[in-house]
């Protein structure tokens, strides 16, 4: 592409408009399909879309391949759950606390892995994720382990939850759009493309990498916190590596390094996984095969394909 359309600001604007169009379609869904089952599936899809957007900020825009997004969703959910369970803290405190706690943990993890790349970065974040999950799992007296924690609900209405998730999704997209079109976004892309080159141009790589880590983890933490109140139960299973695999499949299939890709990928993959459930446990086989096909033949994912046409 050698036209002005290839400018980052143009690409990002088209991408954001497409993402908003998907949000608009989602906003209309309850008008036509309001069964609790359908809305529940879509709420979980939006939960995954939020995690996918958070992970994509780190992996797709900044080039930091973390294997801990599901662990941060779990930590967000447990922050809210534990505050409610032990301290009877209202959700108005529990949810912001989940954002703050996961942002802080993400910041610390970002500092630890600052100089790591590729497999070393992936393995370190994977180790963190497994440690976090096992600590939650084994601290029965504090977390109730695999029994899970009951979390109060924000509201009774499933439609209300649907629109809450949609609003948070739209706000997250808006925030990411604003960041990506500004200095932070350009610096993240530069770090993704060539960290040494970015440093040599004067970009404060340490600051922007840790910022990306903290923000990405906070988005995952918020998703987990909201999901916990929706399902009214949080358990260590939220942090399974399998969940992270699903998130990665969503982003890769949808299109890494875009706003629309993770959103569309999360919706498609989760809806497909629900549909495939009828055929037994073949979801992972199907998604793994889809990831292989995308990685081999069209790395830009479905959104990349759509744009090319």
């Amino acid at each position, binding site marked *: 592409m050698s036209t002005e359309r290839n400018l980052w600001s143009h690409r990002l604007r088209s991408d954001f408009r497409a993402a908003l169009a998907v949000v608009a379609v989602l906003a209309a869904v309850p008008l036509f399909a309001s069964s609790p089952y359908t809305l529940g599936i879509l709420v979980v899809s939006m939960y995954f879309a939020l995690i996918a957007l958070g992970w994509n900020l780190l992996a797709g825009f900044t080039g930091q391949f973390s294997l801990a997004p599901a662990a941060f969703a779990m930590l967000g959910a447990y922050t809210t759950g534990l505050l409610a369970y032990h301290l009877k803290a209202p959700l108005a405190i529990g949810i912001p606390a989940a954002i703050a706690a996961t942002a802080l943990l993400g910041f610390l993890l970002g500092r630890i892995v600052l100089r790591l790349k590729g497999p070393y970065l992936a393995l370190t974040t994977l180790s963190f994720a497994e440690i976090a999950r096992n600590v939650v799992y084994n601290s029965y007296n504090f977390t109730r382990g695999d029994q899970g924690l009951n979390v109060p609900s924000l509201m009774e209405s499933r439609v209300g939850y649907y629109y809450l998730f949609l609003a948070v999704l739209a706000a997250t997209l808006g925030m990411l759009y604003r960041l990506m079109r500004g200095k932070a976004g350009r610096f993240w892309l*530069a770090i993704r493309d060539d960290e040494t080159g970015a440093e040599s141009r004067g970009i404060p790589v340490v600051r922007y990498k840790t910022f990306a880590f903290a923000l990405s983890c906070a988005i995952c933490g918020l998703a987990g916190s909201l999901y916990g109140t929706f399902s009214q139960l949080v358990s260590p299973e939220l942090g399974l590596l399998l969940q992270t695999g699903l998130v990665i499949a969503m982003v890769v299939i949808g299109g890494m390094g875009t706003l629309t890709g993770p959103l569309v990928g999360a919706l498609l993959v989760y809806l497909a996984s629900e549909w495939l459930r009828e055929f037994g446990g073949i979801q992972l086989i199907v998604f793994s095969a889809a990831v292989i096909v995308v990685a081999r033949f069209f790395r830009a994912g479905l959104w990349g394909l759509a744009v090319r046409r």
Partner: protein
Amino acid sequence: MSLLRTEGLTKHFGGVAAVDDVAIAVEAGEVFGLIGPNGSGKTTALNMLSGFLAPDRGRVWLGDEEVTRMKPAALAGRGLLRMFQMTRVFPRICAFDNLLTAGLARGLDEAEAARRAGALVEELTLDPVKYLDAGQLSGGQRKLLEFGMCFMEPPRVALLDEPFAAVHPVMRETMARFIRSRNQRGHTFLVVSHDMPIVVELCHRAACMNAGRLIAVGPTRDVLKDAGVIEAYLGSGAHA
């Protein structure tokens, strides 16, 4: 006072002295050449000057500020910018966006960065490819782009590592013209190069390194006539 100065700069890798007690001084407004055969320590010296490598010993000053062991981004913020032998552009964004990003990193606002990027793509003959992703550009075009990125906000000193290596003659002339024109405006360059005709043409003074040590410093033509320099390049007995 020299604009860029080193004193006793030393770096060992294992038991080998890659750079050994090197003292150079680049004056404001000059083009200073750093020459020497392969493995003489030029790039290691440049890596220490630009903050990518910490010296074992020695000190570096930029103007009256000591900048030894300062990180590359901090040095870039002070106007010491580096261009690499293997170009360091951002391949997945277009050439124009590369320039914009470099401008923002130097503290320009987006409107001013866009204005300067527009002027630079014309000056560097990159206009026809400005919307191509930098990864799709030819090697020479990437070097020109990296020049542009260095000059979005004119540096106090531009460190150029083999800017003319493996570049088409037309582009080499574009680069040389760019250096000349910027130097006429008072900009300072330290150029590492093997391209002797261009070193002679561009550099007011030069220093030659061999086996990690500085063996000659002075006006470029004098350095190239130095017996030690000829021997370093051509072997012993070459000047006989």
